[in-house]
């Protein structure tokens, strides 16, 4: 199933929860989903007979623009052999998005990584701790406005 067909299908069920679709992009076509609906949409994408997106290939966090962060979901169906890209955009002032770790277990560590490096929180995640950096690290390094600390535990950080 192509992205626009999936989009039409979701639009009928979730209405306002589904944002606009972008097809004339240099990357794979994608559409937006609102932050509080992503869990329900994911469950639908996984369980609906004609969709069956049983595999979360990748979940990434990104510093989207000046005021927003984003989470990108790459999905694949081993049943129907089709794929899908979904984005959730959230404001930097309140970067909260519903977890999908209960839909795809693979999302558990991916969400911890996105939280660790970009700094959005995943509501309902069972164990949202840093996964790569030390637990006492301050800040989220993949934010564009991140400043590298001068020292960490007495070790000089810049070259």
């Amino acid at each position, binding site marked *: 199933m192509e992205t626009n067909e999936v989009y039409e299908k979701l639009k009928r069920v979730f209405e306002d929860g589904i944002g606009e679709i972008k097809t004339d992009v240099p990357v794979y076509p994608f559409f937006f989903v609102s932050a509080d609906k992503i869990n329900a949409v994911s469950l639908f994408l996984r369980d609906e007979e004609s969709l069956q997106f049983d595999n979360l290939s990748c979940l990434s966090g990104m510093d989207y623009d000046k005021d927003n962060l984003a989470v990108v979901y790459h999905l694949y169906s081993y049943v129907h052999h089709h794929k899908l890209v979904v984005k959730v955009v959230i404001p930097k002032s309140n970067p909260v998005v519903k977890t999908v770790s209960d839909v795809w277990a693979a999302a558990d560590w991916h969400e911890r990584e996105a939280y660790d490096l970009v700094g959005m929180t995943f509501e309902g995640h069972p164990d949202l701790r840093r996964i*790569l950096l*030390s637990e006492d690290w301050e800040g989220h*390094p993949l934010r564009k406005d991140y400043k590298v600390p001068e020292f*960490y*535990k007495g*070790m*000089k*950080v*810049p*070259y």
Partner: protein
Amino acid sequence: MGILNKLDNRVEQFESGNIIITSADKLLNWSRLSSMWQMFFGLACCAIEMMATSASHYDLDRFGIIPRPSPRHVDIILISGTVTLKMATRIKRLWDQMPEPKYCLSMGSCANCGGPYWEHGYNVLKGVDRIIPVDVYVPGCPPRPEALLEGLIKLQERIREQSLAKKQA
């Protein structure tokens, strides 16, 4: 057996043949440089070259270098790869647990100076010599096994020059 060979003509002066004369320094240094036990420890891509050096083709074993799983057993630590700040605290701790005399070989650009991450590596220590003293640096990204072997032979040369009487720098 370098030292023993050099002493051959002196050994012959004794009839029983079971006595050799040498200096404590030479004997100690010879035994130390012939059994540099290594910390069983690797960090990033450089560790793959280190493993290749340990394997049968390059055979570190013939220098008496064997990996040991406890810092309390070892003489040298090979810092083979990228030292993240998270790992740096652990490396310091391992180093502090190693008994004297101990030596450190820094392998590859990452351990020497941060390597490819020198500018944007927010979590990379720009050189392991910022936390522990390094005896030999081996450049490369990664260094080939031949380069690592040369570094280890350089370290042996350093140990050969040591003396109990004069304090180590």
